[in-house]
């Protein structure tokens, strides 16, 4: 009655920011250092950029990149499957399986990956024939170890088994981060343990599990270079080192390898950025209400806002 229906929009604050001259001083210093570095990099003849260009798309090196990617993806898949199995076994009621997973994690985290890879490579020497059967009784199947455990399989298994132990701890942390009330509600409805786990707990734990797994993948990309311990000789680091030594030009070939690792890491990091945004990493419960949820699905926003999952900032584990 007499009052306007709409509130007038006030004049929005548009104040000058506090001047921060140090920003510009630092920018100048960093720019200078970077320019010096790049100048040195390009003009120093020891880097042999002509050789770098010549070998960048060498078919042997491109194949090495392929093998490196295959080892990374393959070992992460093995690792994730093992990790979920081990984490579930460790929480379960069966004391034998609990023991198995505890010992597995203890052993594979407790010994160097290099040693493990050497061992997998030596398997066919230690056990020339592998057979399945009853101890001291009849054998059902038996095969030559070298046929099944060739270097590629040994490398994949070695990396995957080791990674599984680290990821198992990440998965376990994720499962533990989900509020106990969730399990109780599901149990009270008459759900089996496995249903509760797969339908109720794991979908919420993903928020805690997935981001560090992305980190582990990037780390694995570089860990694959250790498979020379098997020895597996087709991946990027080995191939570039071999070529470099052969031509007495180690430096340009190291640069070639570094370029590929950087490019792949960059691609993985872009993927990781989206995955982390999707799961709302680093946002607390209040983050959801502040609208810091761009890129998250409605479902992930709902989990975040419900606050049923504790995020543990110490969960990133890298071997």
């Amino acid at each position, binding site marked *: 009655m007499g009052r306007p229906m709409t509130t007038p929009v006030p004049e929005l604050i548009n104040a000058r920011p506090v001047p921060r001259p140090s920003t510009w001083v630092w920018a100048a210093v960093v720019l200078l250092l970077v320019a010096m570095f790049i100048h040195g990099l390009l003009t120093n003849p020891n880097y042999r950029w002509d050789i770098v260009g010549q070998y960048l798309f060498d078919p042997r090196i491109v194949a090495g990149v392929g093998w490196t990617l295959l080892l990374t993806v393959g070992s992460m898949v093995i690792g994730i499957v093992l990790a979920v199995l081990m984490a579930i076994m460790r929480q379960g*009621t069966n004391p034998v399986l609990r023991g198995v997973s505890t010992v597995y994690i203890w052993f594979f985290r407790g010994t160097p990956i290099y040693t493990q890879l050497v061992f997998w490579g030596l398997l066919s020497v230690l056990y020339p024939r592998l057979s399945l059967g009853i101890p001291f009784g009849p054998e059902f199947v038996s095969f030559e170890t070298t046929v099944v455990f060739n270097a590629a399989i040994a490398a994949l298994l070695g990396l995957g088994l080791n990674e599984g132990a680290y990821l198992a701890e990440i998965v376990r942390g994720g499962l533990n981060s989900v*509020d106990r*009330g*969730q399990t*109780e*509600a*599901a*149990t*009270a*409805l*008459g*759900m*089996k*343990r496995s*249903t509760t786990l797969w*339908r*109720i707990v794991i*979908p*919420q734990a993903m928020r805690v599990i997935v981001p560090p797994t992305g980190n582990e993948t990037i780390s694995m990309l570089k860990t694959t270079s250790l498979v020379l311990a098997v020895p597996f000789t087709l991946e990027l680091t080995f191939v570039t080192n071999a070529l470099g030594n052969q031509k007495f030009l180690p430096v340009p070939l190291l640069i070639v390898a570094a370029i590929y690792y950087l490019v792949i890491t960059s691609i993985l990091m872009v993927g990781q950025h989206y995955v982390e945004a999707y799961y709302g990493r680093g946002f607390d419960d209040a983050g*959801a209400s502040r609208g810091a949820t761009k890129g998250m699905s*409605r*479902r992930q*926003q*709902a*989990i*975040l*806002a*419900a606050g*049923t999952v504790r995020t543990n900032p110490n969960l990133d584990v890298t071997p």
Partner: protein
Amino acid sequence: MTAMVEISAVHKFFGDLHVLRGVDLEVERGEVCVILGPSGSGKSTLLRCINELERISAGRIVVDGELMGLREVTRGTTTELHRRSDKDIARQRSRIGMVFQRFNLFPHMTTLDNVMEAPRKVRGWDKARARTKAEELLTMVGLSDRMEHYPAQLSGGQQQRVAIARALAMEPDLMLFDEPTSALDPELVGEVLAVMKQLADSGMTMLVVTHEVGFAREVADQVVFMDEGLVVERGTAAEVIGNPQQSRTRDFFAKVL
């Protein structure tokens, strides 16, 4: 017919802590039993023992004629107790609905999916049947316009009503409520109590732990006062709340009312 719930001489220890110290209680079919008592008196523990979220240390709990968590096996002249399998216990739990103080809705599922989940995964209902049931129940609790919302988008009172619908979707014979309104803002308590009253009127057997004395007066057929792990006094609301016989009961209501 036997009573729906028969609890006899139930004890519960947490380590050395003797939380339930010989509880006896009977709840008839269709009866609403309200449990009152001070904090730490073992009310939640008793409810959790009824649906086997906790294992009792001694005594017997019989629901709908079935011994909870245990089986009596007769061997010749002796009767042995055997633990029931996980599967059997899950079956027993699925006959009992439970509503928690903190709702415990599944945050990654919509309201509708929260209610449909257990009928589908536990009872094996097909999607259409579970959905029909869920829609019917959500309408009953007054949330037919919130089916596609996630729990985080609902008020506490709405979340608790979804939780009640979720428990009812399993078509339980018995409903347990553990302080269903204690986590709610005062203005939201009424809507949840109204749903519970409606449920009581429909003939559901209910065991309710609450501090809402008004609800006890209005709805309860039986009021039980617990203190220090024992049932101190039981009777109608008029008897226990209106005219308590024990001094502990009188002291409690003197403070609460």
